[in-house]
């Protein structure tokens, strides 16, 4: 069999952003573009995955070699780029390599941020969309489900997604480890800086209570507070705000620490020693480092958080090696499955024989049937087709259910002998395609 899975695509590793932003399969609403791809000659099934870092087409083609070429041209045409340019920046994978690629993408081993969790959701969405557009047949459906399964295994069996790899996210994770559920906690933002805002933004999703913002310039505080839906307070109310806040993010441009050990001690007393997580993003420091020694106060500065992140990244690299092994295992399993699909000649012959009988019997009765009008004739055709399909159903499922390859040959032989199929097998090539189309429709 020459049919197989192929992947054509480009990602952050192979193509610069100005190429990537051109190849995005725009307007692929309800899989309309995927259908266009599927209509390329030789392409039997297709799915398009397009995220900000990658765009790729996964297809089952027959025959693979020539279809891939047409596929590349079609992709170039759809996105309005030069095929030569596209070819330069894209990768083309077939067979086990293609399968491995799909599994790695779903498991986030091919992502820019290794192990990031979003990609699996994006792949699942693409799968849903193209399933609804019915461009996915049994092979790709199986492929994608195995990809989801592999991703799940990677997530459960390795620590790849365990650790936060951005400073803001690491801060949120840490806040959860200190304060538990963040919903009822309050956040105080001191000063404005890019990093502080980013961290605050991450926290907003977790926190129900309004965020407090203070700044030397009250107007700036008001602006930020508006943006976050929080409230602005004046700098002289800082110690009251500290009494309320559970998470403090500080990033002012002050030359001297604005929060001192003695301040925090008295604040802790008035907040009845409820724990407080302080993040000092400013350079030079806004919060005296010794504050970390106070019971119930956890102070992290930007270097601490960065150290956490880089350690986590290293951990992910190690875990990725384990993940690759899992992917390899799954690729082998999938490739074995595709081999079991090779029961077709017998089935083709069986269908062929039954169809021949049907056509012959109708032809015999042609004289008597001449009075039928077109509608009646159509009904007759439908009934006779239904009958032969029903007859074929049991032997076919008998063949398909056979798992071991030795058994399969024996069973195929039995079916051939029972239905006396010798001379029918491998007769016509196009029948095979018909059968496969039907198989897809049934699934």
């Amino acid at each position: 069999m020459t049919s197989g899975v192929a992947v054509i695509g480009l990602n952050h590793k192979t193509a610069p952003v100005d190429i990537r932003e051109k190849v995005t399969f725009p307007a692929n609403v309800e899989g309309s573009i995927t259908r266009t791809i599927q209509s390329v000659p030789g392409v039997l099934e297709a799915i398009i995955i397009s995220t900000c870092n990658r765009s790729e087409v996964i297809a089952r083609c027959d025959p693979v070699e020539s279809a891939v070429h047409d596929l590349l041209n079609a992709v170039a045409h759809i996105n309005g780029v030069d095929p030569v340019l596209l070819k330069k920046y894209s990768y083309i994978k077939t067979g086990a390599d293609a399968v491995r690629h799909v599994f790695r993408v779903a498991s986030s081993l091919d992502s820019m941020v290794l192990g990031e969790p979003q990609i699996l959701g994006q792949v699942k969405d693409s799968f849903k969309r193209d399933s609804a557009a019915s461009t996915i047949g049994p092979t790709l459906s199986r492929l994608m489900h195995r990809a989801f399964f592999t991703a799940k295994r990677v997530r459960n069996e390795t620590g790849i997604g365990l650790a936060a790899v951005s400073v803001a996210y690491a801060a949120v994770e840490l806040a959860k480890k200190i304060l538990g559920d963040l919903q009822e906690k309050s956040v105080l933002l001191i000063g404005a800086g890019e990093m502080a805002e980013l961290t605050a933004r991450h926290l907003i999703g977790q926190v129900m209570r309004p965020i407090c913002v203070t700044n030397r310039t009250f107007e700036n505080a008001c602006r930020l507070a508006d943006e976050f839906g929080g409230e602005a307070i004046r700098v002289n109310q800082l110690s009251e705000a500290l009494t309320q806040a559970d998470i403090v993010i500080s990033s002012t441009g002050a030359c001297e620490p604005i929060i001192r050990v003695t301040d925090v001690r008295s604040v802790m007393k008035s907040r009845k020693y409820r724990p407080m997580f302080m993040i000092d993003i400013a350079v030079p420091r806004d919060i005296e480092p010794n504050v970390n020694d106070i019971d119930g106060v956890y102070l992290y500065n930007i270097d601490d958080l960065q150290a956490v992140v880089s350690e986590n990244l290293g951990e992910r690299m190690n875990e990725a090696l384990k993940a690759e092994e899992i992917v390899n295992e799954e690729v082998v399993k999938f490739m074995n499955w595709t081999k079991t699909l090779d029961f077709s000649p017998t089935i083709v012959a069986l269908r062929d024989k039954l169809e021949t009988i049907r056509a012959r019997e109708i032809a015999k009765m042609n004289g008597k049937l001449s009075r039928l009008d077109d509608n009646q004739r159509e009904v007759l055709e439908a009934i006779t087709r239904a009958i032969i399909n029903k007859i074929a159903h049991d032997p076919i499922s008998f063949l398909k259910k056979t798992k071991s390859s030795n058994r399969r040959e024996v069973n195929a032989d039995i079916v051939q002998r029972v239905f006396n199929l010798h001379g029918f097998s491998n007769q016509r090539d196009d029948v095979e395609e018909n059968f496969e189309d039907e198989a897809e429709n049934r699934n």
Partner: protein
Amino acid sequence: MDLIFFKSAVALYLVSSVSFFLFLLGSSSLKCPTGLWSALAGFVCHSLSILHRTFFSGFFPLATPFDALSAFAWLITGMFLLMQYRDASPFFGAMATPISAVLMIVGATLSFQIKEPIVPVLHSWWLPIHVSLALAGNSVFALMAVCGLMYIFQERLIKKKRLGRIHKLLPSLETLDIINRRGLPIGFFLMTVGIVSGALWAGSAWGFYWSWDPKETWSLITWFAYAAMVHQRLVLGWRGKKAAIMAIMGFILVMFTFIGVSVLFTGHHSFRNPVLRMSGS
């Protein structure tokens, strides 16, 4: 038959302990299915063992140290597995199964299945009331102490900024503190009712409520320790590390009262020389 259940429970707890231990040493994944499932299987065997002994002796199997420690271990495992179910931190399971296995082995060494029919004074409804209340209180204190340990460990990791895998597997500080906070009044209540029921039982059996037997003295000391803890926590608002240390100290006292006193001194609750049998006869 019950010994088969008992032995397989101990074996499964040990399997679970080992797999949790290896899991904590390892580097991958957040879950330890082997440890969890063997702990659950052990818990089922353990429950069967207790049930079987109930029918076997015709009465609540709580009269011997073997049975009492087994019931204590059963309560601890059950409670910790419940916590693991709620918080998903494998540390609960990892702490529970070794503790339970040790308690059961200690119980088995002290008195392995006493076949004699239990003495009349123990054949009283006060037995299940008094013992189960006391054991329930103790197991709540055990949970608090383990949470206290985890709190101190987790707090240290966060303060030292060593946020490795252990940090991620441990529950959050807040969760641990909440368990301690909620456990304290519950455990204290159970202990109080346990002591009172013991006194009432003594009153109905022997005519005197309180005889300053070593166990009684020590449980009163323990009661005062926990009363102080309730005061510090609820009135003075102690929390976090201080509360965690208190929970650990308290539990050391509990274990001394529970096992140490029974082994070292003679009295109503002595393990070596079951005075209860004599005083009952």
